[in-house]
């Protein structure tokens, strides 16, 4: 509004038009308008935003749950960086040595300890408080090699397991990592469920925002018909609506983030206690990526909604 008014002397129709500057100006106006409408109609607008927040928080909560499962899994994994190999009956010293050499060469193996059958039997006797096992004719226990793995990731364990299957001296190995794999699968499931929910509920968001925008359009239908009559393009008429939709979606995403943060802080106590019982310390918090995801998803869905509803209604209002 600060352009000099009186010393402009440009004459012709075309020269005095500045499409780009006017376009930028209109964008600014639309943003201001969208903010003003938000303040002017707090109840209606915020009701929509709240509904969006609740709807968007659902997939986010599921994803957060998956995230927590993963973290709890990590605690279990500290216990899981171990593996026991049970050797085939009748392996001789040379075979055992060649297996140990092979294990030495594996980057995934940090340490190995050989437990002869005698030691195993002793431990067993002790643990079971049973006497008389010494009296057995032969020791039924196999040779055992106790491994400490380089790390507790399921991938590490899987890679090692593959190699172990090739080793004829190894009859069996403990697969304590199954739990971890399952946890990993559960986390993946939650993640996938979260994404599906986001897509499904995203549709809901499009309809919820769309309905609010439809009311807005209905209220402004005379103005839109007028703008169409005086030569406003569809983009021009659509623009304020796109700002309304995007802003509503963005704030919906923010509310959803708030709700998830609230849920996380409520469940923080139990999770911390659980972690503590495993000697670990975790303090659950909302993932910043999730906040970004929610706000982006909200804004995109709001924008999409405005596009769909806006083009439909404006097309009807501006063309015969």
């Amino acid at each position, binding site marked *: *509004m*600060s*352009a*000099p*008014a*009186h010393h*402009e002397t*440009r004459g012709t*129709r075309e020269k*005095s*038009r*500045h*499409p780009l*500057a*006017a*376009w930028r*100006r*209109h964008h600014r106006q639309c943003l201001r308008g969208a903010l003003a409408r938000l303040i002017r109609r707090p109840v209606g607008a915020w009701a929509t935003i709240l509904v969006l927040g609740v709807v968007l928080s659902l997939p986010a909560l599921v994803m957060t749950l998956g995230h927590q499962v993963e973290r709890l899994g990590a605690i279990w994994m500290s216990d899981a960086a171990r593996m026991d190999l049970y050797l085939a009956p009748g392996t001789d010293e040379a075979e055992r040595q060649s297996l140990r050499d092979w294990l030495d060469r594996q980057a995934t193996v940090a340490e190995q300890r050989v437990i002869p059958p005698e030691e195993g039997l002793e431990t067993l006797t002790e643990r079971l408080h049973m006497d008389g096992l010494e009296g057995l004719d032969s020791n039924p226990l196999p040779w055992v090699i106790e491994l400490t793995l380089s790390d507790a990731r399921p991938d590490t364990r899987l890679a090692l397991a593959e190699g172990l299957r090739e080793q004829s001296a190894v009859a069996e190995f403990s697969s304590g990592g199954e739990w971890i794999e399952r946890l990993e699968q559960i986390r993946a499931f939650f993640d996938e469920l979260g994404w599906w929910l986001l897509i499904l509920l995203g549709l809901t968001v499009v309809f919820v925002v769309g309905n609010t925008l439809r009311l807005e359009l209905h209220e402004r239908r*005379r*103005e839109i*018909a*007028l*703008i*169409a*009559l*005086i*030569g*406003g*393009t*569809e983009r*021009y008429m659509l623009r304020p609506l796109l700002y309304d939709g995007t802003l509503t979606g963005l704030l919906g995403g923010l509310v959803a983030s708030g709700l998830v943060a609230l849920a996380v802080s409520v469940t923080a106590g139990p999770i911390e206690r659980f972690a503590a019982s495993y000697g670990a310390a975790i303090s659950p918090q909302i993932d910043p990526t999730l906040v970004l995801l929610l706000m982006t998803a909200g804004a995109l869905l709001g924008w999409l909604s405005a596009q769909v509803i806006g083009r439909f209604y404006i*097309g009807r209002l*501006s*063309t*015969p």
Partner: protein
Amino acid sequence: MIEFANVSRRYANGQFGLQDISFRLPAGRMAFLTGHSGAGKSTLLRLIPALDRPTSGKVLIGGYDLNRMGRHQYPKLRRQIGVVFQDHHLLADRLVFDNVALPLQVSGYLPGDIRRRVDAALDKVGLLGRQRARIEELSGGEQQRVNIARALVNRPRILLADEPTGNLDPDLSRDIFDRFFEFHAVGVTVLIASHDVELLKQYPVPRIALNQGRISAFEEAES
């Protein structure tokens, strides 16, 4: 230039709004569209800025066949046409300035230009100094003049008016018609629908008389 060639407009209920209308209004000329209410005057005017489509026949504006025009071309067409229509009122919650500035904003003018042109348009209709007034504060005649200022601010080539003096008293009506006549004098093509026979008689302008959707008479200007 406005040209209608065998134009009919039939409604969904089977009734004809317009039937076999043909006429030509060369660029820079002025004409009145007369007839009782319901004769098809508004229906005819609405076809010109492509607010409606003919069921059959051709409407040509400046040589362009509206039937062949895509909807993305409508804005360009409509920016060349100023309209004073009954059903396109002013935005009552805005200032006079905002209402008149609207066509310029839509066409991409900058604030300085807009101010200058709005002032000029309001000056032409005798409302200079009322820029900051709210539409609700204006009388019926003043509102109609704001309407005319809005139709002219974009310097259109064609001006259409549908019963522009609807509820106004005779003096005011004359005043408004005088202004239309002035615009015609500077080269704007003007087409005005009115049933105010007494008023129309005072202007040497050809008349297209409509009756039940047909042209019943084409009277050349008397004078």
